[in-house]
């Protein structure tokens, strides 16, 4: 029966955490390498050998403290960031029985903290009498806030959504991570004394002039807020969603989701895979994913692909969406696709996909989900008169992360391509340090 609203109860987290005996054994496998390459391979530059050494002597608190110095969100990142492609990939233990399971160990510490009666709170230094406003409370904004507070700044954070967290709260399916874990770690930031204003669009509510009067600096960590849709023929009517919309509604418990029986998802990133896997988990198995190139070109985490594969994802490679066809009731009936051929460009490593004439075919469909990335929310950019790059991101001085307005800093995916949450966190921390340096110079 098409288009029957489905009541979705939300997912239970499926990620498990090692028991202490397992964790100690795993920690015992680490060589505690000199100048360990695992650290360099994790964008947050966490002292992995250091925290593992502390775990081995059962100093879990000290180990957690060390992790939190570089990554305030270990419970989240160790669940959803591709450690297997970063630090674990670089682990020198790899050749003897596989890499040390660093994500698992970090998660044990995060859980240890979450279950502790006396959770870890860093010491806050004396105030340096500077106030920084941050717009956006995703991973970059939050980690910048932590670093600023730990350097003696006061931080006020603006978030347009109802709750803080950005991608943390919106973009990750609950079977990978429970809301409780996210909430715990996001609240940890607020506990440091960061003021949070939610449900507010910073630019509209406070103007730049008054901001400059009240704050010493402004950091934009607004991400790429607006999901893209392909301007194909027929894309203005019918059940057309974006991947993020679906993920977001799947996070809300007891939400009624109107989804059809024949779902076509366009795009080959992590979000498309997550949406597909989530729908498959709900028992909706007539989902087809269209991707314009091949598997090896998909910008996805190995673990997420594996999961979607296990769930039985159907992917049409080298395929693009050409047209969406609806009937008179504005109900989608089918989509027209076209096959691509892949050509290697002479001057670069890149492979370009070119449509093959006459290779069109149709697929039955009643719902189309676009998951082809996001773009910058232009409103703020225009309001603040910010320069942007060709890529459509905010232009900053890479040395200082300042925009063309030296009062305004920007960081995270609104500035550059960010692949993982750990990257986003590292950028936030790094930019916060730059801001402090600049404020102290003044």
């Amino acid at each position, binding site marked *: 029966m098409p288009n029957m609203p489905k009541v979705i109860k939300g997912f239970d987290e499926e990620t498990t955490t090692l028991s202490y005996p397992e964790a*100690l054994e795993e920690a015992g496998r680490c*060589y505690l390498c*000199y*100048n360990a390459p695992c650290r360099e391979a994790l964008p947050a530059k966490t002292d992995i050998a250091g925290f593992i050494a502390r775990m081995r002597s059962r100093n879990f608190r000290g180990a957690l403290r060390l992790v939190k110095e570089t990554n305030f969100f270990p419970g989240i990142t160790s669940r959803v960031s591709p450690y297997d492609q970063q630090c674990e990939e670089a682990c020198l*233990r790899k050749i003897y029985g596989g890499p040390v399971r660093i994500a698992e160990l970090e998660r044990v510490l995060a859980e240890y903290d979450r279950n502790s009666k006396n959770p870890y709170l860093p010491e806050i230094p004396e105030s340096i009498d500077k106030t920084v406003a941050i717009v956006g409370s995703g991973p970059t904004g939050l980690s910048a806030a932590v670093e600023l507070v730990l350097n003696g700044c006061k931080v006020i954070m603006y978030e347009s959504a109802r709750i803080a967290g950005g991608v943390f709260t919106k973009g990750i399916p609950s079977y990978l991570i429970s809301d409780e874990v996210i909430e715990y770690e996001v609240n940890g930031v607020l506990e440091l004394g960061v003021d949070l204003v939610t449900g507010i669009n910073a630019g509209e509510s406070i103007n730049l002039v008054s901001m400059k009067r009240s704050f010493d600096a402004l950091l934009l960590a607004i991400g790429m807020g607006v999901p893209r849709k392909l301007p194909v023929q027929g894309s203005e009517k019918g059940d057309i969603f974006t991947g993020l919309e679906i993920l977001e509604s799947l996070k809300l418990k007891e939400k009624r989701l109107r989804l059809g029986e024949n779902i076509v998802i366009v795009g080959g990133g992590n979000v498309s895979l997550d949406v597909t896997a989530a729908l498959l988990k709900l028992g909706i198995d007539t989902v087809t994913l269209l991707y314009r190139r091949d598997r090896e070109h998909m910008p996805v985490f190995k673990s997420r692909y594996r999961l979607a594969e296990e769930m039985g994802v159907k992917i049409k490679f080298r395929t693009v969406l050409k047209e969406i066809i609806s009937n008179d009731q504005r109900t989608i009936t089918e989509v027209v696709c076209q096959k691509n051929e892949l050509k290697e460009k002479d001057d670069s490593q890149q492979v370009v996909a070119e449509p093959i004439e006459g290779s069109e075919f149709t697929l039955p469909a009643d719902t189309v989900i676009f998951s082809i990335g996001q773009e910058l929310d232009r409103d703020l950019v225009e309001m603040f008169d910010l320069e942007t790059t060709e890529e459509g991101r905010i232009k900053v001085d890479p040395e200082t992360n300042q925009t063309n307005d030296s009062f305004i800093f920007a960081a995270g995916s609104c500035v550059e391509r960010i692949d993982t949450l750990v990257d986003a966190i590292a950028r936030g921390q790094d930019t916060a340090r730059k801001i402090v340096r600049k404020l102290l110079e003044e």
Partner: protein
Amino acid sequence: MEVNLGLNFCGVNFPNPFVVSKVPPVGDVEIIAAQLEAGWGGVILRNASLNTAAGKQTITALRGKAPLYRGVDYEEKRIIDLGWIEPQAPISVEEAESSIRTLKERFPDSVVIAGMVGTSREEWLKVSRRLSQAGADMIECDFSISNGNSADVKTVIAHDLKLMEKASRYVREGARSTPVILKVPGTLPEREMIVETLKEAGANALNLFYEPKGVPGINLTNFIPFPNVGGKSTLSIMGGAAIKPYVLGILAEWGIANKRLGLSVLGGAYNWRDCVELILMGASILQFHGAVLQRGVRFVDELKSGVSDYLSEKMISSVEKLVGKSLPYFVTEENLPRSSLVAAAIDEEICTHCGICYQICEGLGYHAINFSDQRKPMIDKKKCVGDGLCVAACPVFNCMSLRRVSR
């Protein structure tokens, strides 16, 4: 290749050199029978004494003083050492006699060693006589106890050579033709003198033991040391796997001093490699206590297989041929060769590039390992002094070694 694990020790034929010492803590001859059934070469019964009223050991008495045992862990590794406060209370001569008879009847080919203690001429004479008459293959008299039953007389018999000599003569006399082992702490000084004196007094063998007193650890939550017996603790006997090096050291010293007495050793053997090492250092008979508590009676299979497979691989026909083989290589420090030149070497095939060797050599100040950007360690043979700490620390088994270098 057929190898022989059996050996003749002071005229007694042992099917193998592995002997269970005084397990279980409370007397039940069936448990001891099960040990012989499982294939241990012999058993030592708990010490018999004429005076057992003071310390009759019962399960109820033990339970009132629990816990008795505490393991020592290192990081994720459990029980690298084991401590216990189990009192070794003597049993009555009657109980010992009946156990000897039962066991010898059922296991004529296994060795039953009767333990005993004494504090007077009468006791040494009588107990040894009765144990020998009951059919014990050997008698082991324990000199590690105090002379006298009153709590304030604390002279350990083994610390008084004259007393030991006297006692040995009585035991010898009482035991008649039954071979006598004297149990003395391995840490005693003046080993040559002791060996001479006790040999003269009629002893056949020494059982060296090393059971240092220690504290397995402290509970960091409530500050009470382990084991916590109703809120209090006391010194434990430490007798787990960690003591092997000390036992080897003791054997090395006694082995060199001793040409005339058989040597048995108690403690330190936790796998077949330990066994081979202790035998190479001069022990003929290996006694097990903590290891049997920890691993159970079947543990003997591992030991038997380990030692006999080692022997076949080395093409050595009998375990007897190993006894004391390492002693000639053991000298005092001032007699070490002065012209030994070695340098560290790395097996590149299995190196993980972890850099630990580099870190260590830098820390020692020799700067003999170069560590490239590609994380490849290279030994600078000119700078390497060959001290071997990097070899000890390399986390990959057999990856580093020391090689002789020519000048």
